[in-house]
């Protein structure tokens, strides 16, 4: 082995990443403007043409089974269309879509989230579905405001499939084991924190230790809800933050004592169970999150009974100020060769009664009358729908418009919350670092 041989050996693998970046640049998008158009001006599916559509969504296996079943029904109705479906977990889903967007190879139809809609819709990555309204796409079955959540500027870039509301789940079996009183619907946020402290005290000697709550201040959406409850604007129309550092500090301080006393689910447990949360792992008795999580929680815990409560209120204001977040939107990639067929597929999943029955409330409460019409309302679905019906009067606020870069600031919030839980930063540092990240992530 001579020196000469060796010299040629080092290879720089990190460049693979750079290489990817570059390849993307070389093939960078040929994004033409769609031009919009009047409703009804879009083409319709030619029944004699063989069409293949690709479709992607995020979710677990349970969701995949439901989608596949619905797609089979679609293919029966449109024998000339073949749908090639695929799915991945949320975390892997977005990097893959971003890469495809750069290479103009987005799927024909794919699941979209509000957090990313302005990013994709505002950059000519999605088909404006307006021309297909009244044609292949029927959106008359859903409330106008809900449909509007799929708009960016003048274009309709995504069709909401369902709505979610924030809720507080509780695990009655675990609460009984802890021997504390169950949390109630009339709690304020500080009552809830106090209850969590009590529950953690009661569960300290169990092995593993049991807790009343995880650090709820780490959930960015709960903070948004808290801002809305306080009557504050969350994001300005230009996509900037409408709240201040003091607002965030106030929110974080709700759980200061819990963190200091070790009365929230510890971060090292959380890191080990990831992607399950403490509620799924049955070490935490309550969880404040989207109400469509119920089906997942039943599956993860294997329990027969879980309760849904409304989320706490702010001190001195009983109005809960809930909002419905449109979820699991469906979009068509700008590069699709068959926008009319994509519109037909979106239409089918959105409206078909049988498809609606297949999905139930697993994607949230279905957005259209027709999708709800044949739902077998029992079990989990019944519980979620009853909850939303009970909350109907409390759902008074519109969901805040999310700025471009929302996904990034939400992830930064979660990460800093973990760092805070480990005691590596203070609440002040949390605020300072998060605002610095938000500054570079938001337009």
């Amino acid at each position, binding site marked *: 082995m001579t020196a000469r041989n060796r010299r040629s050996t080092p290879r720089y693998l990190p460049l693979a*990443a750079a290489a990817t970046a570059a390849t993307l640049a070389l093939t960078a998008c040929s994004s033409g403007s769609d031009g919009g158009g009047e409703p009804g001006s879009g083409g319709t599916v030619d029944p004699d043409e063989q069409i293949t559509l690709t479709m992607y969504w995020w979710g677990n296996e349970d969701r995949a089974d439901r989608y596949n079943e619905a797609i089979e029904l679609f293919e029966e109705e449109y024998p000339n269309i073949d749908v090639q479906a695929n799915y991945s977990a949320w975390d892997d889903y977005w990097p893959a879509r*971003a890469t495809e967007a750069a290479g103009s190879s987005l799927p024909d139809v794919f699941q979209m989230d509000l957090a990313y809609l302005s990013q994709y819709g505002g950059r000519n990555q999605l088909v404006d579905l307006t021309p297909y309204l009244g044609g292949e796409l029927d959106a008359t079955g859903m409330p106008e405001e809900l449909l509007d959540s799929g708009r960016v500027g003048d274009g309709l870039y995504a069709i909401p499939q369902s709505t979610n509301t924030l809720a507080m789940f509780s695990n009655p079996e675990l609460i009984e084991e802890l021997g504390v009183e169950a949390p109630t619907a009339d709690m304020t946020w500080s009552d809830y924190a106090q209850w969590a402290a009590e529950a953690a005290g009661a569960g300290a000697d169990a092995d593993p230790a049991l807790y009343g709550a995880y650090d709820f201040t780490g959930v960015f959406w709960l903070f948004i809800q808290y801002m809305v409850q306080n009557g504050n604007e969350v994001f300005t129309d230009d996509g900037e933050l409408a709240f201040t550092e003091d607002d965030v500090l106030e929110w974080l301080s709700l759980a200061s004592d819990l963190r200091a006393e070790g009365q929230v689910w510890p971060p090292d447990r959380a890191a080990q169970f990831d992607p399950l949360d403490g509620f799924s792992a049955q070490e935490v008795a309550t969880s404040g999150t989207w109400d469509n999580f119920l089906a997942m929680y039943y599956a993860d815990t294997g329990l027969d009974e879980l309760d849904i409560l409304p989320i706490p209120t702010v001190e001195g204001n009983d109005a809960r100020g809930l909002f419905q977040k449109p979820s699991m939107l469906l979009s068509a990639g700008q590069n699709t060769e068959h926008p009319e067929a994509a519109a037909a597929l979106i239409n089918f999943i959105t409206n078909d009664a049988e498809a609606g029955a297949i999905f139930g409330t697993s994607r949230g409460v279905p957005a259209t009358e027709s999708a709800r019409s044949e739902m077998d309302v029992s079990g989990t679905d019944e519980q979620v729908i009853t909850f939303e019906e009970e909350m109907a009067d409390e759902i008074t606020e519109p969901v805040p418009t999310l700025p471009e870069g929302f996904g990034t600031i939400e992830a930064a919030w979660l990460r800093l919350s973990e760092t805070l839980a480990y005691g590596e930063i203070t609440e002040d540092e949390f605020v300072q670092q998060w605002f610095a990240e938000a500054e570079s992530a938001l337009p």
Partner: protein
Amino acid sequence: MTTDTRLGAAADTGKRPHQGSRTRAEARAGYVFLLPWLVGFFVLTVGPMLASLYLSFTDYDLFGAPEFIGADNYKDLFADPRFRKSAQVTGLYVVLGVPIKLAAALGVAMLLNAKRKGLGFYRSAFYAPSLVAASVSIAIVWRAMFIDDGAVDRALQVFGIHLGGWVGNTSMIMPMFILLAVWAFGAPMVIFLAGLKQVPGELYEAADMDGAGRWRKFVNITLPMLSPVIFFNLLMDTIGSFQVFGSAFIISSGTGGPADASLFYTLYLYIKGFSEFRMGYASAMAWVLVVVVGLLTLVFFRTSKFWVHYAGEE
């Protein structure tokens, strides 16, 4: 080498034109055969590299066109606390992981260099982990071993050590990654083993005559004779360690957690590029890494003449 000699010979005999055209024809044929590789090299390696160099001076979010912003990405980099953290994490991993791994590899190679029964089996057994260590499944198994009440935790409890899970512990996650790296010492071990076979037995016999002990023989014969191999392994493993990604990605679910304690450089690069859509920034990070690894390699080569001993060189 052969070409040089032939050209020299041709010049001497005065038959240059004829020989020259043959050489040119051969060279042409050579390049034709090389073409598939050359195309790949320029299209898939050099081109993208240059493009990424350009991208590193732009604001590029994968959606719109890249926008030239000068050296801003590089300025932002050095002001970014997470960048510093990722450089620290990776630096620590390289500085601790590489020497420990090489020491383990050399130690085992020396044990396996003896003449015993069943050595073939042991060699394969020790080499096997390095074949799978970078795989996704091993990262998942590793993760499961190092949680609360996992295999490692229980084994340590037998000895009265209560550490809990390493995965969620900000100060134990790095030792876990280093262990994973060390466990995969098979590749350098095989190379060490080959190197040990090359050390002439006479040297040890002579040393025995002079009454040298084991340690003396190791320091004065084995190490100098192995130095080219040590140099090679050191270089390759250092470069490889800077690029650790797969296991870090799986074990922390792509976050670099807990609390950024496993935020390896390439993982952060990935997060910036593909989760936060800052491909310009990610490209700048890639180039900083290229420069750092390149400089280190240069330092290794420059210093090698002081400690690397090639047999036959005097």
